[in-house]
């Protein structure tokens, strides 16, 4: 109940800030842009060049899902970096909310929105047939991914500029989702350790239980490591 009140207050605060509210709406814009590209541009390219992109649809869905989750994570990361600059994070640590409460409040935004946008993206794009269970698993994993990106930025960057450098580097993680396309064994092996690879694997193999298990393990592993690092550096 206590935390619900904080979450609702934070939500009100974010919605009052038009900038934050707009940024949190940005994934919706990306989904619309990709829908328009698929409806108008893809047939035009196919008729002009004969290039049929339908076999690539699972990769397109992976790209948009990871892009949105990553973006929400980056927005949260910058929000937390601003808190760091204003010593708000330190202030929160001595309130009843505590360090973990602060972390939960900040990261839950990106995560809750990631769940929502995963479902929205899947149904609006409508380019890959998945069962509801797979979409639900994807939404939870992408929520964890968002939180991990936010935490990575907060723990790794000491200022806004380093935050931008970090976000640039973190954007590159999306490439791991396409590791299988490159047919490079070493690249695929490296990709196994990164969440984006497993997002695309679930989309490609929605009925493979072992893929889901490994995906969950990799995502949770990253999150636990980052939370551990956060508390260690905060001490």
């Amino acid at each position: 109940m206590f935390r619900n009140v904080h979450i609702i207050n934070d939500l009100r605060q974010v919605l009052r800030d038009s900038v934050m509210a707009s940024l949190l709406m940005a994934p919706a814009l990306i989904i619309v842009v990709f829908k328009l590209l698929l409806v108008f541009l893809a047939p035009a390219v196919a008729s002009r060049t004969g290039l049929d992109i339908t076999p690539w649809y699972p990769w397109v869905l992976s790209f948009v899902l990871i892009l949105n989750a990553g973006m929400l994570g980056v927005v949260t990361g910058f929000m937390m970096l601003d808190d760091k600059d204003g010593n708000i994070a330190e202030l929160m640590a001595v309130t009843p909310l505590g360090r973990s409460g602060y972390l939960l409040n900040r990261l839950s935004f990106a995560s809750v929105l990631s769940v929502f946008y995963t479902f929205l993206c899947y149904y609006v794009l409508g380019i890959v047939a998945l069962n509801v269970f797979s979409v639900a698993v994807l939404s939870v994993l992408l929520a964890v991914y968002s939180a991990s990106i936010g935490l990575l930025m907060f723990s790794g960057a000491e200022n806004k500029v380093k935050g931008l450098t970090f976000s640039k580097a973190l954007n590159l993680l999306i490439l791991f989702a396409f590791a299988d396309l490159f047919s490079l064994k070493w690249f695929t092996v490296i990709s196994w350790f990164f969440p984006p690879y497993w997002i695309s694997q679930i989309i490609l193999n929605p009925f493979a239980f072992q893929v889901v298990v490994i995906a969950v393990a990799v995502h949770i592993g990253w999150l636990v490591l980052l939370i551990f690092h956060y508390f260690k550096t905060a001490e």
Partner: protein
Amino acid sequence: MRLWNAIKADMLFQFKQGFYFVYVFVAVMYLVMLSFLPEKIFLIATPLIVFSDPSVLGLFFIGGIILLEKGQGVLTVLVVSPLRTSEYIIAKVLSLGFISVLAATAITFFSGYQQVNWFVMVASAMLTSAVFTFSGIMINAGCSTVNQYLLKTIPWMLLLTLPCIALVGFPGSWVFTAVPSVAALRLMLGAYWGIGWVEALLLIVYLAGVNFLLLKWAVRIFENKIVFQE
């Protein structure tokens, strides 16, 4: 001398913040991607990648740099230092442009792209980078957080990138060359696909002129809105 020192200081700062390091990774990732593309798509994708990432990196980074320096009180010191505002801005534009040129050259060279007009490519990367960095400085006015800045860049990016579709070609599409980003992309594509020297020279002169006007505008906005916060 003041300008040169400012450029050196900015480059050192950017190095310490990991700009060069991150662009090594960016370049490697793009090279891996490009190596898997069929020849026909590779020829189109290379100039588009060079234009869309290394050339516009200034817009992405300048917002954070100015906000950080504002927070650290650097801009307040700037007012009483011998360094002119224009020199401060030019140092930022040139130092970020240097990374753009370096990344663009590395991607092009190691991708094995044949018959590149290197002079036009370097000029295009530098001039494009300057256009976007100047835009970033102007967008920064009134921003107090990076999220605010990133949000404000969205309409500018749409305004600058959407007209580039005109390069696909339709009746009267040449009019869009007046948009600096379209002129810059035309020049960049010319560096890879071939371009007449008259057209290249006209585009370079045009973009240099646009950058001069943007510098004047950026100095005014920077002094009024960012330093003195009128």
